[in-house]
């Protein structure tokens, strides 16, 4: 199995607070990998760092064997008192839109659908980099088949959708670009158990049938571990455990801290 995503010792800081401290992990082609941890452990920050929405201050990120972000020992340089991401020697660092162009799609925390746009327009935005109108139309029909509720609401403004429907739209929007790597940030957050189950079933189908590699971040450790091949556990910005998900489900520490067993 080849590594699709290889994160090597990355750090992210918010001012003086270190949100991530030399985190290393990898995702192999075709896997579903989950990252679990408590609220505020740094899980979302990690996803944002992968897509360059947060600048890393240390380490490197490789995708498909190519560096997409890399920081030398001096760290980021500053301009007008503000850290800049691109400076001499660091020009290999890709921007968010360039990373999206390489086939990485993130379903952000809290869905972040474009509320003032219709369901269809949201899907159009997901296909922004696809320049083939026929392909876009076909993809949209695929999405409406896959998530029938979206088909029924294609002309509706997104703000009128329920939380579960918005989550499905956010996933569908990410799939419009036919990504190779799908990143999901808390796909189950704030949703009813039945809907969470539905969404995780869809994630499985996407992984199995469309051959999309999935890396997901979840607070709900039980469902995330059951849905994934491997898992990482994060505490205070550090990876403390990593193993096959079946083993993590049996692990005493994980059971005590994240699965509610005493």
């Amino acid at each position, binding site marked *: 199995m080849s590594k699709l995503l290889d994160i090597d010792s990355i750090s992210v800081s918010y001012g003086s607070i270190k949100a991530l401290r030399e985190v290393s992990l990898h995702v192999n082609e075709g896997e579903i990998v989950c990252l679990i941890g408590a609220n505020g452990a740094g899980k979302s920050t990690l996803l944002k760092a992968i*897509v360059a*929405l947060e600048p890393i201050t240390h380490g490197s990120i490789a995708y498909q064997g190519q560096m997409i972000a890399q920081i030398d020992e001096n760290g980021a340089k500053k*301009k*007008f*008192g*503000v850290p800049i991401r691109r400076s001499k020697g660091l020009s290999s660092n890709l*921007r*968010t*839109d360039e990373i*999206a*162009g390489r086939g990485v*799609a*993130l379903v*952000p925390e*809290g869905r*972040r659908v*474009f*509320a*003032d*746009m219709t369901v269809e*327009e949201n899907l*159009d*935005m*997901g296909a*922004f*980099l696809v320049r083939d109108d026929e392909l876009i139309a076909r993809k949209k029909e695929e999405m409406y088949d896959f998530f029938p509720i979206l088909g029924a609401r294609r002309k509706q403004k997104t703000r009128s959708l329920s939380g579960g429907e918005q989550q499905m739209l956010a996933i569908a*929007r990410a799939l419009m*670009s036919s990504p190779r790597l799908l990143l999901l940030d808390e796909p189950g957050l704030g949703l009813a158990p039945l809907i969470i189950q539905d969404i995780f079933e869809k994630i499985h189908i996407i992984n199995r049938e469309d051959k999309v590699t999935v890396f997901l971040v979840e607070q709900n450790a039980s469902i995330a571990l059951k849905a994934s091949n491997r898992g990482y556990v994060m505490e205070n910005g550090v990876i403390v455990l990593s193993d096959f998900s079946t083993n993590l489900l049996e692990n005493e520490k994980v059971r005590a801290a994240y699965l509610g067993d005493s």
Partner: protein
Amino acid sequence: MGSIAEFFQHLMNGLTLGGIYALIALGYTMVYGILKFINFAHGDILMVGSYIGLFTFDAIRGQTMGPWTVIAFFIAMLAGMLFSAGLGMAIERIAYKPLRRATRLAPLLSAIGVSFILSNMAAWMWGTKSRKLDYPFDNSPIYLKGVSITPHQILILAVVIVMMVALKLFVDRSRIGKAMRATSLDQDTAKLMGIKADKIIAITFAIGSALAATAGFLIALEIKVYPSMGTMTGLKAFVAAVVGGIGNISGAMLGGILLGLLETFGVALLGIPYGLRDTIAFVALIIILLVKPEGLLGKAEKEKV
């Protein structure tokens, strides 16, 4: 003629003035929508655009009047639009972009600086004497049941309507237009879709500046052109954008037209002295801010979690 004719007369005048405000207000609102920042140099971009349009027209219209004169008029307008679009993009690149991550006050101050530079450069290069577009066509009013309409007014309204419809279609239907809306709704998520935010911002400045130049050219036709013309006009159009709901494109159109009508009817019907005409906009602003701070079509800002 009765008061009905008088009403329609003021309506016509108000719509013409309001249409011009609306074109300018669109630039403020589009830029604000994406960058959450007021481009205080917008009025001066308008001024430069109207000078360029005026000079171009004088240069190419020739001695004899004919169909060419009409074509020359629109070519001149286009020249002003293109020049301003380039100017707007250059200003964004030089004066605003380096400050994108700095405190919110920094680009605002930079904009005020750019405004001073542009109006003083104009005064230095072109003098402070006001000019008027030397439009060779007959402008004697046409009387329609007691309402007098000048050919200029018809021209202004036609240009305003074409511009607004074109903009609305562009923003609602085109790929780039949708990307502009997406970027204005949520810049980070737009980037995740592969949208180059910097490119969208540049296009936004280009379109807003071109619309301002159009408005400036129409002002040159109806009123006059001078280096500080952008200040009050720009300020009032900014008020129009806030009244309509800043960040909202339909709101800017509505706010602009409403402000034009208010000014016209305020002077004509409410007996507000002409000298106080400019205060009407600001009184309207105060009232709107008290009653509906988000503006007529604006949405109340939700706390972001």
